[in-house]
């Protein structure tokens, strides 16, 4: 791997945002994700190569470490900040079409529920895996999901719920969306949700953590 991209990978993995960031201590004073992404572009490295070789694999590594219990939410959030810093330079190429997203993921916490920490983590990790993420927020009605699907044809949908009383609203949303868009695929997650429940309500996947969401989305691509 190119040396700049190698450094960029490390910055994302350990949450080194820019030169001014004092963390991690062993990288103090060194350039961070912000500067290295700019350098890579200036060196003529294609933005798609930066995404595919450094940014996405680094976030995948972070997701794996989280799944394995090697890092926890604060470390993951810092990596996401570094990723966002890098993406400020890459985003114009998404808009111009020079860098292609893998697809679109519409996500929201179901109506009746206001919990958003888990959902936000999924947003960051899925975006870091190369997907466009449309975050509808919390307390999202079935109608809002339908409207988002109509605005983003071909999108897959993620539903989050943290309460036993609101997880049942997932089925209402899936049924409502499928009335007019039977092709839409759903991934569900949240503390009270299980794989069995996901199957019962007609979801296409159950994600126990953000890395699961990414794996399931990849499986949709390969289906």
């Amino acid at each position, binding site marked *: 791997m190119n040396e700049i991209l190698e450094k960029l990978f490390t910055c994302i993995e350990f949450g080194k945002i820019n030169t001014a*960031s*004092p*963390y*991690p*201590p062993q990288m103090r004073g060194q350039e961070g994700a912000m500067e290295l992404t700019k350098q890579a572009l200036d060196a003529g490295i294609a933005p798609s190569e930066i995404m595919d070789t450094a940014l996405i694999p680094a976030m995948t590594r972070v997701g794996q470490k989280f799944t394995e219990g090697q890092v*926890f*939410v*604060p*470390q993951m*959030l*810092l990596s*996401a*900040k570094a990723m*966002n810093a890098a993406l400020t330079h890459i985003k114009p190429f998404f808009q111009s079409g020079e860098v292609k997203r893998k697809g679109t993921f519409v996500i929201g916490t179901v109506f*009746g*529920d*206001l*919990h*958003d*920490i888990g959902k*936000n*983590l999924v947003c*960051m990790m899925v975006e870091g895996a190369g997907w466009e993420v449309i975050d509808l927020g919390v307390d999202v009605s079935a109608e809002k999901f339908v409207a988002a699907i109509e605005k983003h044809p071909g999108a897959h949908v993620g539903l989050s719920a943290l*309460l*036993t*009383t*609101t997880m049942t*609203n997932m089925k209402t949303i899936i049924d409502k969306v499928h009335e007019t868009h039977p092709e839409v695929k759903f991934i569900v997650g949240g*503390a*009270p949700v299980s794989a069995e429940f996901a199957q019962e309500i007609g979801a296409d996947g159950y994600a126990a953590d953000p890395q699961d969401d990414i794996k399931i989305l990849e499986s949709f691509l390969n289906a």
Partner: protein
Amino acid sequence: MHDSVKSTFHTYRFPYGEVLPSLDELARYLHMDGDTEHPAYAYMQERLDELATSELQAVGGYAIGAVDAVDMQGGLLTVEGVTFEAGTQVCGYLKEATEAALFLCTAGPLFSDEAHRLNAEGEFLEAYIIDAIGSLAVERAMDKIHQALKEEQAQRGLKITNRYSPGYCNWPLKDQRALFGFVGENPTGIELSESCLMHPIKSVSGVIGIGEKVRRRAYGCVVCQNKTCIYRRLVQKE
């Protein structure tokens, strides 16, 4: 059925400075202990210092009633004519209770409002930290109320149990309505949504058993399915 002993709501108020977690406790809760160079550490200290001087308070308390029946097989707990589907596990812990304290406590809306604002600004790490401070603050306020109840009942020669909440230990969340109905008028300002979510979010509710033969015990995480429960995280840290 026991004679009615139903009390009005005993209120407790604690300035934030009395219920905030210490920096070490917060760091342990977030799995950050040892990583003192992480930027989260400085932010945690800054917010804890700022909140410690706040004039805001955590508010909570309980209403006590006589236990009419504990149906172990059906998992039903009846207090002063109000039946809770508390489940076989909680009923097992309360089977010797002659009275029950139904409690509410809130750390107020500040934590969720602030987390919401920070999330909207893309400051997810900071939002996560403020949310965690709120979770620990309301539990610490409830710890103090729990202790006050223990001392109050000790004067009567009675002991108390752990606290158990709807939504945990297989006690359906929908019983929040019965619980709030039992507690009645109170100054916490906590409201229930249609889906039984408490507002402010950083609030807790539940039951504590009282009696001569009840006892406090280690939380039963082994038999509970909730992998994200705050008690599981606290127990694992002990």
